């Protein structure tokens, strides 16, 4: 599995911690906005 530039970004829905609370976020709720997705290994790691 994987993605490429020029393709539709796969939609997803997941729990998140946002501005002090828990919230379900959905990528497609951000349509009409620029979005940066940053994956990273884990909280409390060093880099």
């Amino acid at each position, binding site marked *: 599995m994987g993605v490429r*530039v*020029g393709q539709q*970004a*796969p*939609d997803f829905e997941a729990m998140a911690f946002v501005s002090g609370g828990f919230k379900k976020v959905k990528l497609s709720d951000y349509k009409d906005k620029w979005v940066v997705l940053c994956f*990273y290994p884990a909280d409390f790691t060093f*880099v």
Partner: protein
Amino acid sequence: MAISTDTHFVHKVWQENELSKMVEGGVPYPLVSDAGGKIGTLYGVYDEQAGINIRGRFIIDPDGIIQAMEILSPPVGRNVDELIRQLQAYQHVRQTGGNEVCPSGWRPGKTVLKPGPDLVGNVWRVWKPAEAFK
């Protein structure tokens, strides 16, 4: 948004106990939980053996199309300046309806190129390699 395989509960503790000490008020974007790596798998950045997502970064435009991606292995961090530069460049291209494109090293205010028959073989007249730097 930032995504790891940690739960949203761990994200809360991290934001409140560490991130908020580096950035006043904590980071202003959602910390998304990808427990199980389903989202990372969709984007090709989930490492099943380690059970974590590697450092994948995607710029998605207002139509939901991926315009840029970068993938780093865990021990090296990203360059936020470069992310912002790419975002500004893609936004510029979109604003001009693709009539202007951004050559190497482009930043707002630097030379843009207008693709067309007249530019073929003539890029050297309007753009110098020194512009690729700084």
